[in-house]
């Protein structure tokens, strides 16, 4: 027991105590500062994407400097540590090619900025709002409120459509009418409809494009514009209004009909005559 006390007295000198306290203070202050920068740093003149990058860069830098300073204070030889880290890096490098690829892709994405935080993008079958653009991945919030993580490498290789990049969008409606209809009359009804819909932009003017003679309909495209905020309202209102206006104008929207023919050798379809309830 006495030997333990003597040992502690020899080891825990004032110098060691001072170093321990200093190291503790560096660690606490440094990490707190890094945390505060990560949580609170907001530069008013920057957008959310740039703010995110600045916040992360500042907090990571302070964190790394804090750890290095802490290690130096407690007497760890960083040269040895970095040497070991070098060897380790080679080993880890082979094992983490995907991660490295994602990081490099992430840097390209951040530099190119095809979209920023808050944009709505479509990647493959996934459409959602960009939550974060990290070094490894982009996180999206889909409209059914799910989070989708897309690796940066995939983002760089895929076709990414930014739906909210430009202030206005075009809605392309593919419509077919019966062969008996007068297309001039159809055009008139559609243009009147676009003119009456307040969220449908007058300019750029709506567009009517004849697509061709279909199997059972004259097919055309009617394109109208709206602001990106009103796109959904336009999408819903125009389709409903077109159906209603066609019904009112007596314009037929045909659908494919199928005739069943049993063949010459088969028995004919049995036919049953029923009386209408109104007449009975």
């Amino acid at each position, binding site marked *: 027991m006495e030997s333990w006390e003597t040992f502690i007295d020899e080891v825990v000198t004032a110098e060691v105590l001072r170093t321990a306290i200093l190291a503790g203070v560096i660690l606490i202050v440094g990490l707190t500062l890094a945390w505060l920068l990560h949580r609170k740093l907001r530069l008013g003149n920057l957008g959310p994407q740039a703010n995110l990058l600045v916040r992360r860069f500042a907090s990571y830098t302070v964190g790394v400097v804090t750890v290095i300073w802490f290690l130096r204070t407690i007497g760890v030889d960083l040269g040895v540590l970095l040497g070991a880290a070098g060897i380790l890096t080679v080993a880890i490098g082979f094992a983490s090619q995907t991660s490295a690829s994602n990081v490099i892709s992430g840097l390209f994405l951040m530099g190119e900025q095809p979209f920023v935080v808050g944009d709505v993008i479509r990647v493959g079958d996934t459409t959602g709002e960009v939550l974060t653009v990290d070094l490894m991945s982009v996180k999206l919030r889909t409209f059914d409120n799910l989070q989708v993580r897309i690796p940066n490498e995939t983002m760089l290789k895929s076709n990414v459509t930014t739906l909210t990049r*430009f*202030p*206005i969008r075009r809605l392309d409606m593919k419509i077919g009418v019966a062969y008996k209809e007068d297309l001039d009359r159809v055009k008139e009804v559609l243009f009147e409809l676009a*003119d*009456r*819909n*307040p*969220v*449908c*932009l*007058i*300019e*750029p*003017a709506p*567009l009517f494009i004849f697509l061709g003679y279909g199997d059972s309909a004259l097919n055309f495209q009617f394109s109208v*514009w*709206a*602001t990106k905020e*009103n796109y959904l309202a336009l999408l819903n209102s125009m389709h409903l209004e077109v159906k209603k206006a066609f019904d009112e104008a007596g314009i037929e929207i045909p659908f494919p009909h199928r005739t069943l023919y049993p063949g010459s050798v088969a028995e004919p379809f049995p036919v049953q005559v029923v009386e209408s309830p109104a007449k009975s």
Partner: protein
Amino acid sequence: MDDRTLMANQWWGVVGIPPGETHHWRIGPLDLWIKRLTGEWRVAYGTADDPMDSSLESERLREDPDLAALGEVERYAVDDTAEALTLEPALADRAIITRPETPFHVPAGEQVTVYVSTPLWVRIAAGDPPDRLREGPISRPSDTWFGPNTREGELCYASRTRFVLNLENAPMVPHRATTALLIRNRADDALSLERINLPVETLSLFQGPDGRIWTPDVRLERTAEDEFAELHVGSGEPEQAKGATRIAEPRRKPSGNAVIRAFSSLLKPWQ
């Protein structure tokens, strides 16, 4: 304001509504019902199809109507409903792109004054001093885009107008403001007016002695060799309505010298 037919095209002003009662206004295509309850105002509104309807009515309803059956209903909770309810006219909250119904050209060296009309908004305020409850268009104009391409520009409202040359032929619609637009073409070739960007949010409103609602005069000037024409926006009473009363201030002050280069072939068809 309680008369069924309003005097001199004036549908705005202060109305006293006793507790539990409903007041109804018809301002052209807009029907507006406002009901006073304890600690609450209920506003119902509905819009008819004809934007040029110029009928005006203001009446206190004897019976208690079912507002939900009449139109869209909104409720505004307040500490205490005072009797005074104020309607105010205002111009649109975005610029209006006005286009002539037929192509309109001003030959070289000519100067003409045309009259264009733009839709008004109605502001509802309650109490004394009045607190704003809501504001909205009497007839909602369609949106339109004004800019050099589909990537840059500004969202505006669209309005078609006949570009009337004689004031007598300009219909006096109580929910539209008339603007006298002086066009000077000092260039060597004809000026084709396809569209004009009227920055109505920077204009005040006046009521002339005959009841017509005016904005200050606007001057469109094209100098020689200039592809664009410059729009100079005035701030005082219009020349055509001396002694007019100012009835609404502009929503915002015009920036700079109020000269706007916005016009004509700026917009191309984009497909």
